C-alpha cells in the first residue's frame, strides 16, 4: 500500500457513492428521525394543558413536523436532480483513507474503557505515526508518550480532572 496520506492525483477515479444516492439516504434518515420524534411527542402529548401551558411534547412535535416537511422537499429534489447523479461524493481511495483514521479511532475508544485513556492514546498515536506516517518507531513512541504524559500531568495533576484510567496508572498509585 502506498502512503495514503499523499494527495491523490487521479481525480477521475470511478465514484463509489454518487452525490445523489447519499442525498437520498440522508433525507430518508431525516424522515426516520422526524418519525421517532413525532412518535414520542404524541406519547407526551402536544396539546395545551390548563395551568401547565404547552405539554412537554408540544415543541418537539412541531419541530419534527417542520423537519419532516423540509426533508421531504430535500428528498424530492434529490430524486429529480440529474446533475447530482454525476457528482462524486467519495471514491474508494477516499473511503480507505478515512477508515485509516476512523477504524483505529473506534478501537481506541473501545480500548479506553479497559486500559484507560492515556495508554490507549499513546498506542493510537504511535501506531498511526508508524503505519501511516512512516515515522521510525522510536520517533513515534517518543511523540506518543510525550503527548500522553503532558495530558496526564495537565488533567490529573493540575486541573484535577479525572479521566478514565486503567491498570497501568493504578500500578503507579493513581
Amino acid at each position: 500500500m502506498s502512503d495514503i496520506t499523499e494527495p491523490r492525483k487521479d481525480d477521475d477515479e470511478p465514484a463509489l457513492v454518487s452525490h445523489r444516492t447519499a442525498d437520498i439516504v440522508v433525507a430518508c434518515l431525516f424522515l426516520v428521525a422526524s418519525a421517532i420524534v413525532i412518535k414520542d411527542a404524541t406519547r407526551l402529548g402536544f396539546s395545551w394543558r390548563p395551568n401547565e401551558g404547552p405539554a412537554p411534547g408540544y415543541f418537539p412535535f412541531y419541530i419534527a413536523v417542520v423537519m419532516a416537511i423540509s426533508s421531504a422537499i430535500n428528498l424530492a429534489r434529490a430524486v429529480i436532480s440529474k446533475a447530482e447523479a454525476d457528482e462524486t461524493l467519495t471514491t474508494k481511495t477516499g473511503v480507505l483513507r478515512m477508515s485509516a483514521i476512523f477504524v483505529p479511532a473506534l478501537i481506541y475508544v473501545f480500548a479506553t474503557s479497559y486500559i484507560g485513556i492515556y495508554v490507549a492514546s499513546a498506542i493510537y498515536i504511535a501506531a498511526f505515526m508508524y503505519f501511516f506516517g512512516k515515522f521510525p518507531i522510536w520517533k513515534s513512541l517518543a511523540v506518543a508518550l510525550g503527548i500522553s504524559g503532558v495530558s496526564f500531568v495537565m488533567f490529573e495533576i493540575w486541573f484535577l480532572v479525572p479521566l478514565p484510567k486503567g491498570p497501568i496508572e493504578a500500578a503507579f498509585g493513581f
Partner: protein
Amino acid sequence: MLMVLGIVLGVVIGVLPGLGGANGVAILLPLTFSMDPTSAIIMLTSIYWGALFGGAITSILFNIPGEPWSVATTFDGHPMAQRGKADEALVGAFTSSFVGAIFAVILITFLAPVIAKFALRFGPAEFFAVQFLTFASFLGMGRGSAFKTLASMCLGFALASVGLDGVTGTLRLTFGYDELLNGFKFLVAVIGLFGIGEILSSMEEGLSFRGAAAKLKMDAVIRTWRQLPKMGFTFLRSCIVGAWMGITPGGATPASFMGYGLAKRFSKNGRNFGKGELEGVVAPETAAHAAGTAAMLPMLTLGIPGSPTAAVLLGGLLIWGLQPGPLLFVEQKEFVWGLIASMYMGNLVGLVIVLTCVPLFAAILRVPFSIVAPAIVVVCAIGAYTVNNSMFDVWMMLVFGVMGYFFTKLGYPLPPLVLALVLGDQAESSFRQAMLSSQGDVTIFWHNWLSGSIMTLGVILALWPLVSMLFNKKGDDAARAAA
C-alpha cells in the same frame, strides 16, 4: 503578576475543548479563597479573558471550537488557515476580541446604572424574540438550500429536546436509556461535527493541513492591522450587537453568530464569507468578546449573571461575602473599580501575550499531519469525555463525526444545527413561559415595542428565502449547483 498567570491559565483552558471558561473558573475558584477579594476577582476575570482568547486558537487552526462562542470563528478562520493565512486570522481574532472587550468595558464604566435598568425589561417573551431572530437570520442569510438549513436546524432542536424537560420535569425521547437522561451535550456534538468531521474530510482529500503550513512571517501583526481600519463598520456593528446581547443577557454565543450573520449581510465582501475572509473572523470575535465582557454588567449591578462563567464568578463573589446588586457600587467602591480597572489591564496584557505567541501557535500547523491527526482525535476524545465524565459521550462524538462529514459533503449547513442545540432548550422554555403568562396568546410577542420589533424582523428574515425563491427560482438553482 496574578493577571499574567490567570491569562496564561485561561488560554490553556480555552484551547482545551471540554474545559470551558466556566469550568476553568470553577476549578480554580478554591485556589483564590486565600487571596483578598480584589486580587481573587482579578485572577478569575483574567482566566476568563484568557479563555475567551484561547477559544479562537483551535477554531482557526483545527476547525475545533474550544468554546461555544468560537463556533462562528471557524467559518472563516479555518478556511484562512487552509489558505496559509493562519497568522493573519489569529492576529485578526485577537485584535478584534480586544476591541470588542474594550468597547464593552467602556460601556460598563460609564453607563452601568442606566443599562442595568434596561436589562430588567427582559422577560421570557423578549428572550424568545431575540432567540427567534438569531435562528431566523440563518434562514434569511444562509447560502445554499434553505430547506437543508431548516432540516438541519430542526434536527438540532430535536436533539436539544432529548432528556429532562426543563419546564415540567418529564423525560423526553430517552426510550429508557439512562445515558440520554442529560440530553446531548453541545460540546460533544461540536467536537464531533467539526473536529472529527474535519479530520475525516482532510484524510479523504489526503491534502492534510499542508495548505495551512505557509511560511511564517514575523510581520503578521502589522500586516493584519493594516487591513483592519477598513472594517470600522464591522467592528462597530459587532460591538453594539455584542454589548447588547451581553447585557440582555443573550450571551456570547448568539452574539457571535449574530455578529457574523450581520457582517455577511451588510459587508461588501459578504459573498466571500465562509471562504476565508478576515472580516468573517473579525465580526464574530468582536461580538463575542463585547458580549462576554458586557455580561459582567448585569452580574455586578443586578446580581443576574449574563453568562455561565459570570454565574460562577457570582458564586465567588457571594463566597467572599460581597452581595452583588446596586449597593455594591456604593458599599464596595474599591472592589468594583478594582475590577473595572482589571478589565482594561487584563485585556491589554492578554492581547500582548497572545500576539507574541501567534508565531508559536501558527507553527503547530507545520507539524506533519500523521502526528496531528491522531493527536486531534485524542484531544477530542478527552474533551468529549470531560463534559460529562462518560464514555457514552465519546461514542456519540464519533457518531457526530460521521454525521458532520456527510452533512458538510451534502450541503447541510452545520451552524444552524449547533446553534439550535445550544439555544434550543432556552428558546423552548422562554417560549413556553411566555405562552403560560399570556395563556396561549401568541400576540404576547408583540405586546411592547421591544419584543415586537425584534419578532417582526425575525419573521421577515425567516420568510425571506421563500419570497426570494418565488421571485427568482433560477438563482436558487444556480446557488445550489455552486454549493
